[in-house]
């Protein structure tokens, strides 16, 4: 009913809890594994190396242009599986709700999760719901864990990265964090920026299927953006990555917002993008293949692996060289 709120009794295990679970939550995720509502979802025999991941989602506001915390919770976990070459099998959905959270917002979020799971071809196999007293959670927190099977013959191989390899980014940087910042409305900026939150399984597993070992290693550049992820990749492989600033894809509105606030899009979070380090000779072909997919239209080769001490540097637009290091803390709007 409109205006209905989540109450503490929804989490206490009694009739309200059962109603919430069956009529609101399970009804949406309906599948044979979940249906019996055993204490565990039984997935059957799985053939192949199992990948297992988990993430907590606390984004505020819960609903933002381009998506919501539900879509984020499903896609984030799916993408963590995909960048490790795993076909997703099942995810869990653990909800912590604050007393007073609107039921209507909850159903919107659950519908998003259902749609994202369907798109990502994965089932919600198990879950949990808790309700905490007002003030003890920011509306809604979601934790998802995901299980997948790694494609035969491919596994992430940072140790195979070598000079001559190239770096591909599957699309524009910073859309997600820019959209959330605008939605928070603290900076009173308006812009038509949509979060890029999306399930990348089909795009990435497709690339692995076509190019196999030519793809050495992948990551999804979430918190800390491309800047942090590339540093992690350079560290994992012990190599020097040289970026070409002129080739970094950034949407105009995101650039505009960054120029106003003094932000660097390299460090803004993405939720529908992947970084791939690939065999240099196959880079253009791989980028071209990615550009033919729904979420890879702006895929670009953004840099290469070079000789030299490990780390990330960048050839700037005007031809200079500068380091791209780990940032310290979140970016803040500055006057200087």
């Amino acid at each position, binding site marked *: 009913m409109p205006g209905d709120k989540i109450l503490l009794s929804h989490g206490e295990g009694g009739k309200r809890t059962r109603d919430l679970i069956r009529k609101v939550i399970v009804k949406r995720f309906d599948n044979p594994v979940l249906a019996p509502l055993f204490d565990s979802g039984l997935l059957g025999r799985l053939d192949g190396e199992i990948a297992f991941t988990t993430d907590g989602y606390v984004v505020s506001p819960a609903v933002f242009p381009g998506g919501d915390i539900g879509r984020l919770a499903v896609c984030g976990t799916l993408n963590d599986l995909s960048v490790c070459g795993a076909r997703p099998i099942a995810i869990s959905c653990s909800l912590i709700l604050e007393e007073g959270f609107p039921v209507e917002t909850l159903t919107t979020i659950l519908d998003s999760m259902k749609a994202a799971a369907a798109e990502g071809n994965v089932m919600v196999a198990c879950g949990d719901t808790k309700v905490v007293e007002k003030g003890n959670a920011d509306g809604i927190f979601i934790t998802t864990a995901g299980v997948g099977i790694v494609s035969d013959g491919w596994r992430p191989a940072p140790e195979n990265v070598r000079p001559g390899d190239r770096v591909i980014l599957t699309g524009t940087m910073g859309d997600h964090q820019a959209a959330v910042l605008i939605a928070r409305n*603290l*900076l*009173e900026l308006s812009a038509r920026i949509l979060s890029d939150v999306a399930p990348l399984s089909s795009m990435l597993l497709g690339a692995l299927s076509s190019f196999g070992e030519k793809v050495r290693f992948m990551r999804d550049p979430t918190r800390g953006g491309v800047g942090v992820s590339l540093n992690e990749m350079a560290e994992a492989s012990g190599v020097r990555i040289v970026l070409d600033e*002129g080739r970094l894809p*950034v*949407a*105009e509105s995101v*650039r*505009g917002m960054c*120029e*106003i*606030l*003094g932000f660097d899009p390299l460090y803004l979070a993405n939720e529908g993008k992947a970084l791939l380090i690939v065999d240099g000779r196959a880079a253009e072909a791989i980028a071209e293949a990615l550009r033919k997919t729904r979420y890879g239209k702006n895929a670009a080769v953004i840099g290469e692996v070079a000789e030299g*001490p490990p*780390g990330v*540097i*960048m*050839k*700037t*637009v*005007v*031809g*200079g*060289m*500068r*380091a791209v*290091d780990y940032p*310290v*803390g979140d*970016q*803040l*709007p*500055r*006057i*200087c």
Partner: protein
Amino acid sequence: MQLKYIDEFRDPRLARGVVGKIRAAWGDRPAMRVMEVCGTHTVSIARAGIRSLLSGVVTLISGPGCPVCVTPDGYIDAAIGLGERPGTILATFGDMLRVPGKRSSLEKERAKGIDARVLYSPLDAVEIAAKNPEKEIVFLGVGFETTAPSIAGAILAAADGRIANFTVLSSIRTIPLAMEVLASDPEVRIEGFLCPAHVSAIIGSDAYLPVAEKFGIPCVVAGFEPLDILYGIYLLLLQKKRGAATVENEYARVATQGGNPKALEVIGKVFRETDTAWRGIGVLPGTGLRIAENYAAFDAERKFGIEIPSAEERTACRCGDVLKGKISPPQCPLFGKACTPEEPYGPCMVSSEGTCAAYFKYGVQ
């Protein structure tokens, strides 16, 4: 996807051309010592990798134009003290959040319970005051002439709106006299000044005539885009070559000779000239702006009866010498060891445009 009046000034082909022209014009003369006064220039230069393009031709010295770096640590302590008063909201530009005072930083105190908010504009603080009449809003008004009119504008808006719960803890400094002090310091040896773009938009390029004339040092007002900086340096090199010492304006699309009269009027209405301490440098007469008597109700120092304690320097920190251009960051014994962006000892490291932070973040190993 071009951002107008930004991307044209980052054109790679033009940049190559200007760099080529610079090297052709200068030959193998010894590198010219140019001080870029403004912290935004420091960051632009670092982000564009300009040092690497001009090595051997120009030695770029970063000056004290980082308002956060030159604000005495007693200011942060005073701000924290105000924030600890019940019912107080501290509002600040993002630049100040992580700067260490003597005991703590605003970021750390916020985790302990102080209500400290990062805002984009001082007007947002006035709005918060209007919407929260039972709270006291204190805005940390730190900056140079670029920001002074905006802070003055906020005070005027509060006066207009009869908002009684808004004050500014003011820490505003002015540039030209500080440049004269640096120009006269024999240890610093400045051969040219790259003058700040937006300070100049407010005060006008004529403000630097005394520096050029009294000290015989070429001055060029340059914008912040890479091409502005490269061309500005080119103009300085040409002046040096022909033995000239004048003020030229590369940023003519925004800065004029006389500045922005309305902005100057607004500053004159709300502020008065005063002597003020620059962290690491000392007291420079006439280089500060304090809130005028008739706006005393918006002056946090007067309203709350506090005085910003003068800095007791933590002696191992050599921010002062870095700010004066006497040493480069790697020459400070703490750089990269006891003083890093995660655990900064002095403000030059934590400020978004502090010289040491720029070196650390953007310097290529």
